[in-house]
Each structure stands twice: as structure tokens, then as C-alpha cells.
């Protein structure tokens, strides 16, 4: 029974590792300028955690195999070096491992959160509400008009609560249900929630940030590959949470300009 158990542990450990080694399921291709550091951090952690996993399970299985049963006449033995060696080993090995991961992790995190967007970054506002994202572009004047919560009306399709009559800056604002951005252009994303907490998760962009009702948050990023990607909500926001998504189109500059003109005409 003990030997069979040991083999089972080993087989489970190996089978578990196979999809990782074969890269069967993996994060989608990175299309951001900052994502490379995150992916490297993930790879490094996978190596360290994966080896720890396989080594620990193998030793556990080996000891179960080797030290089960009564073995009459044989005295119980203690692990060479005792607890001191194991504690010292754990502190040194894991300490170095987590120190290294921590330091490099700060760099990957800082690429997003501890840098400022350039002055020419393209501002795009995103509003999250049950159960849709809406996006706003400032129009030719480059300015966003102010928001008025009391004017928000899904029925009137005034998703942001704009008042173009009273606020000249709102007149040329462009509101869309999908996000489009030019490739290789830095984006300054202005985030706010209309009702409850939501999240802006774009796996391909290596961007993941909650919307916090009552707080205006900013992110900045640059997409490097033309294509269509998905934005999904990852913060439980109600019954339609599973279906709260939008598309992100990364266009060439020319296609983006054409798209924006078309959207402006539809306002």
C-alpha cells in the first residue's frame, strides 16, 4: 500500500508538470511594452516553484516508499543533521529565492505603476458599469468635458452623464462601446466606475486593474501589435459579470484615425 501510494504521488507530480513543460495552456501572446518583464518573472517563478514542487513530492514519495512498514530489528533513525540543518537550509534556500523574486518583481511591477506617462500619451477614459465598459475620447479639442452623475442615463444613451449644452468641452467628446487605440502609441487610461467595483483585465496587454467606485485611477501602456483583443471584467459585479466584456482594437495610426472619424460622425 505504501509503495503504491508513493508511486501515485510521483505519477501525479509528473502528470501535473507535463502540461506546463509542453506549454499546453499558457498566457496569451504579450502585446505590450512592459509585459516582457512580467512574463520573465512568471517563467522564473515557474522554474523555481516547479522544481520545488517536483523535488518535494519526489522526496516525500521516496521516504514513504523507503520508511514504511515495521522492519523488525531495525531502530528508528533521525534525519542526518537533524532539524537545525533543515531549518537553516529552508531559510537560506527559500530566503534567497524569495529575495530574488521580490527584487525582480518590484521592477516588473514598477514598469507599470512607478513610471509616469509621456506628455504626448493619448488619453482614453473608460467607465465600468453593470455590465458594460464604455470609452470616451476627448475629440479635436483634446479636452474631456466634466461628468454629471445625475445625468447618467442608459435609456438616453448618456452613459457618462455628459451635458454638451452646458459644457463646451463635452461637445466633441466621442463615446464608444469598444476601445480602439493606435499601435505603438502610449495610452493614458483614465478609469472610473459608475456603480460597483469592476476590473479592467486585458491578458494580452498584461494589464489588470480594479475600478474603485469613488476613486479615479490611471494606467498607461503601449500596445505593440495590431489585432483584436478582449477586455473582461474580473471583479464580481453582479449577475451579468460573466458577460461583461469589450473588444480592444489595436489599429495602425491611419486605421485608428479613420475609426475615430467614423465614431465622431455617429455621435
Amino acid at each position: 500500500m505504501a509503495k503504491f501510494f508513493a508511486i501515485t504521488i510521483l505519477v501525479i507530480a509528473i502528470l501535473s508538470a507535463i502540461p506546463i513543460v509542453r506549454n499546453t495552456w499558457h498566457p496569451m501572446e504579450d502585446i505590450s511594452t512592459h509585459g516582457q518583464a512580467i512574463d520573465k518573472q512568471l517563467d522564473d517563478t515557474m522554474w523555481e516553484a516547479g522544481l520545488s514542487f517536483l523535488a518535494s513530492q519526489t522526496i516525500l514519495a521516496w521516504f514513504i516508499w523507503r520508511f514504511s512498514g515495521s522492519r523488525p530489528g531495525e531502530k528508528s533513525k533521525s534525519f542526518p543533521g537533524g532539524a537545525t540543518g533543515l531549518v537553516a537550509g529552508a531559510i537560506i534556500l527559500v530566503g534567497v529565492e524569495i529575495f530574488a523574486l521580490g527584487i525582480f518583481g518590484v521592477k516588473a511591477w514598477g514598469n507599470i505603476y512607478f513610471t509616469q506617462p509621456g506628455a504626448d500619451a493619448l488619453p482614453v477614459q473608460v467607465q465600468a458599469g453593470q455590465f458594460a465598459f464604455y470609452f470616451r475620447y476627448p475629440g479635436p479639442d483634446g479636452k474631456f468635458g466634466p461628468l454629471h452623475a445625475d445625468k447618467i442615463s442608459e435609456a438616453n444613451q448618456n452613459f457618462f452623464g455628459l451635458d454638451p449644452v452646458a459644457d463646451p468641452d463635452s461637445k466633441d467628446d466621442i463615446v464608444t462601446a469598444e476601445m480602439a487605440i493606435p499601435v505603438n502609441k502610449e495610452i493614458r487610461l483614465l478609469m472610473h466606475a459608475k456603480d460597483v467595483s469592476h476590473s479592467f483585465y486585458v491578458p494580452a496587454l498584461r494589464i489588470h486593474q480594479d475600478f474603485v467606485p469613488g476613486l479615479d485611477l490611471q494606467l498607461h501602456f503601449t500596445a505593440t501589435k495590431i489585432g483584436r483583443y478582449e477586455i473582461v471584467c474580473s471583479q464580481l459585479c453582479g449577475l451579468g459579470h460573466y458577460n461583461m466584456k469589450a473588444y480592444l482594437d489595436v489599429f495602425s495610426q491611419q486605421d485608428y484615425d479613420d475609426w475615430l472619424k467614423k465614431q465622431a460622425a455617429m455621435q
Partner: protein
Amino acid sequence: MHDTSAPAAAHHGPPTTFIRKHVFSLDHKVIGKQYYDLGLAAVLIGMVLSWLMRIHLGWTNFAIPGLHLLSKTGAPGDVMTPELYLQLMTMHATFMVFFVLTVAPFAAFGNFFIPIHTGAEDMPFPHFNMMSFWTTFVAFCVMLLSFFVGDGPTLGGWTQYAPLSAVGSVAGPGQGAGVVIWATSIAIFCVGQLFGSLNFIPNILDLRCKGLSMWRLPLPTWAWFITSCMGLTSFSVLMPACVLLILDHVAGTSFFVASNLVINDQLQPHSGGSTLLWQHLFWFFGHPEVYIAIVPGMGIVSHVLITNMRKPMLSHRVLVYSFGALAVLSYMVYGHHMFVSGMNPVSSIVFSFPTLLITIPSTIIVLIWIGSLYGAKLRINSASLFALAFISLFITGGVSGFFLAQPSIQILLHATYFVVAHFHFTMAIASVFGIFSGTYFWFPKMWGRMMNETLGRVHFWCSFVGVYCIFMPMHYLGLAGNVRRYSSFPADYMSPLVGVHQFITIAALFTGAAQLIFLYNFIHSRFWGPPAPDNPWQGTSLEWSTTSPPPWDNFGGRHMVVYHDPYQYGVQSSKGDYVMQDSPEQVKTENEEP
């Protein structure tokens, strides 16, 4: 300071009426068994809910016969709606986290064995102890009530993030009365657990019998002591948080709701609250809760392993210090649940380092377990199989913690199935395996009968292979970006992953069905199992020095005296390779730590 010259006990007479004996009992052992039965009822509910959820995730339009009985509007044609999915998910997690993972390893086993391990007659405050169980039972009934009130239970998840949880029914089904009932139940539950901790701690500090120093306490009792301290400080934060949440619903306050929120085109009548305040309060409880669930399991499997290895752990003290380190660090790491929540990004770095640091005591514990296996004479039985599997599961859950401790990696993995896999392996499944190990080990003592060993092993094999089939693939789903708490997966990149969900669903149904083997074995053995000897496993700690089951005063009027460390195995004595803790027999104390 504890006076070791006098026998210590909390005195109350033997129960004389049926009510006092079986219902409103003051006997810690009856209360422990009541907690166990409550945990068993809760785990059955939680398991059935998980079956329903998993069927829906695998086959979204599958009609589950009778599902409409659970919800008036949530299951047209017995097909689950997204809102019913979220309601069942919330109740699954709530029942499991609070009424199973807290109740069974901590309150049930702790109640039964702490006074026995300390050589006491009962808890120091038996009436409080009785109130602890019945308060928890009321909390359980209140939580059940939410299935039958208004538009059903809350759908906001066990974390109940505000403002979804605070704005009322305008936010969706169950978000009105359902949330108020949820918060009321949890607040009551917190009171019950505080009563429990207020008994456990003084029992361990003040009711230890003669000769029983703190270092002579068995490892599970150390684990329950540390868990009680965590419970005191964490439940006392969650309870007022729940009261504030209720006030946001019924008193027009705005603790957790910011200004100018618009839901269904209605401007909400709240202002000035903080969305993140709830998250801070909740996770200040929530992360220690992870250790409240797992540390008792660590103590239990250590105890079971030592008895079955026939040798003590490499270091009793290092394990105790490591349990303590987990408890202290657990308060410093809660922010890793909030890396992308919108709190200051510098805070994420600050919370990241203690989160990584907590892997050191966790690693030490695992290495002590594995290192102690070296040179053992390991007995394989249902209890030791579950204990050994606990180590395997804890390793698997632990290594995935490396990923989630890092804010940069959480950009990819936060709120995905990777997180679901991680916390199920650690606080849920490992903890449940600790409960099973403790049950197979202590069943003879608790109920005075033996469980069927063959059924125990069948139960083990199905469960061990089953849980890996359920939860290991969730790591892969998470890596692929599969978001959790979705009732189905309409996103283009997630829909190809449904096949993996179907595999998990089949594994979950199989593994769940295997638990019926345990249920049969448990009930049958409880009433019809062969009578248990007093010390069936040749154990050394004080529970094995009394009858199975123990009399109402635990030791039949004997004032216990302890002469040894709790784990004197691998020695030469008149009984064999062990010496009971209360035996005055002198042996070469090769296992005493300096």
C-alpha cells in the same frame, strides 16, 4: 502563573437530564461532537452546491432535475441562471469557509481534545462553551434562512465586496435581504467563535494538570492555542465590519458606499464612504482565517504522523515556532488579496515581502514533516494516508503561493482559476484531509467504536486522486486567463477552455460521490462499529490514558500527572516502543529536546 503542584479542573456535576446530556450540554466532548455534526451538515450542503455549480460550468444549459426547488426564479426549466450560479457559489464558499473549515478542525476537535490533552475535567467556562456552539448553530440556521427569504441568498461571493454588497437589492438578486442575512449570520458566527477562543486559551494556559508544561502539550493543542489567538483578533474585526455593512442597508449610513454612484439609472442615496475600507477590514480577518483553517490541520496531521511513524518529529519546538510565525505573519500579508484593488501600488510591494516571507515557516514545517519520515517505521492506515496526503496537497498549494505573492504576476493571475486552485489546495482540501485524518484517528476515542478500515482506504484513494483531478487543471485555466466567478465563458479566448471545465466537473462528481463512502462508514461505525479499545494506535498523549469514549469528567476522577513529553516513541518500555505521557515509568529520554 500556572501552579503545577495542584490538580486543575473546571468542576460541574455529571449531566442528569436528556437535555443537559445531549442538547444543551456543558460537556466539552458533547459540544465537540455537536460542532463536528454541524460541520458535517455544512460540508454536505457545500458539496451539493459545488456539484450544481460544476454541472453548470461544464454544461451551461443542462437541466438539473429539481433545481427549481432551490429558487423560485433562478432555475426556469431547471436550468441554472447566472444569478443563481453566483448565489450557490456564495453559499458554497460561506458554508465551507465558516461552518466547515473553521468549525471542524478548530471548534470540533479542539473542544473535544483540549481539556483531555491538558488533563482537565472540562473547559474553564462550560456555559460559555455551550453558548459558543448554540450561537454558531443559530448563525448556521440564519444562513440557511437566506435560501427562503426574498429573492434568495446574496450573490456577492464570500468576500462580499462593497459597494455591491452595500447598496441593496438594486444591485441584483439577493443583494437586499440576502446580504443582511449573510452579514447577520456571520456576525453571530463571530460571537460564537469568540466564546470558543475565550475557553480554549485559558484552558491551555491555566488548566494544565500537574507536570504538564507548555512544551509538553501535544502539537494539535499548540495549533488550537495559536488558532484561538488568531480567532480572537480576526473575528473581532469581521464582526463590527458586518455590523457596519448591515447599517449601510438598514440605517442609511454610507460606510462602504462612495458618493455619486448610479445603478439602474438611479443616483444612489449614499455619500462619503470608502470602497476599499471593506476590503481592508475583510482581509484583515480573511487572511488569518486561511491559517485558522489550516493550522489546526497541521497540528492534527503532525499528531497522527508521529503516532504512525513511531518516532517524534525532528523538532517539536521548531514546529510550534513555525505555527506561531504563520500566525503572526498572517496579519501582515492580507494586502496580497488587494494588489490590483486600487490601493497605493507601493502598498502592494510592502505586502508582497511578508507574503513571500511566510513561505519560510511553511517550508520549514514541510521539511520537518518530510525529514521526520526519514528512518521511521511508518504504519499505513486511513489516518496516516490522509495525513501524508495532506503534506502532498500542502506542497502543491504552497508552491502556487510563490506566484500569487508577487504583484507583477498577479497582473496575469489575479481573480483567475489559478487563485481558486491555490486556496483550495491549501486552506480547503489540505484542511479537509486534516479533518479526515483526525476523524479516522480519533473516531475510536470520540465515539468509542472503530471505523471500517477498508472503506476508509477506498475513501482515501478516491479522494486523493479525485482532488488532484479537480484542482490541478485549475492552475492551467488560470494561466490561460480564465476568470473565476463566471457562470459561463462567453469571452472568445475562454470558450476553448470549456473542455477542461467538463473534465473538472466529472472529477468533482466522482470525488463528491466518494464522500458518501465516508458518510456511510461514519454513520454505520458510530452506531454499529466494533467497540474501540482505549488505546488502539498505541498513542502516548493523554487522550489514550482514558476510556473510549472518555467518561463525563474525562479521567474518571483521576487527577492526572504528566511525566513526559507528549511523544515518547521509539523507546524501550514495559508497554513496547512507547511510554504514555502519564506513566511514571522512567525511560531513557532520547527524544527529549534540550
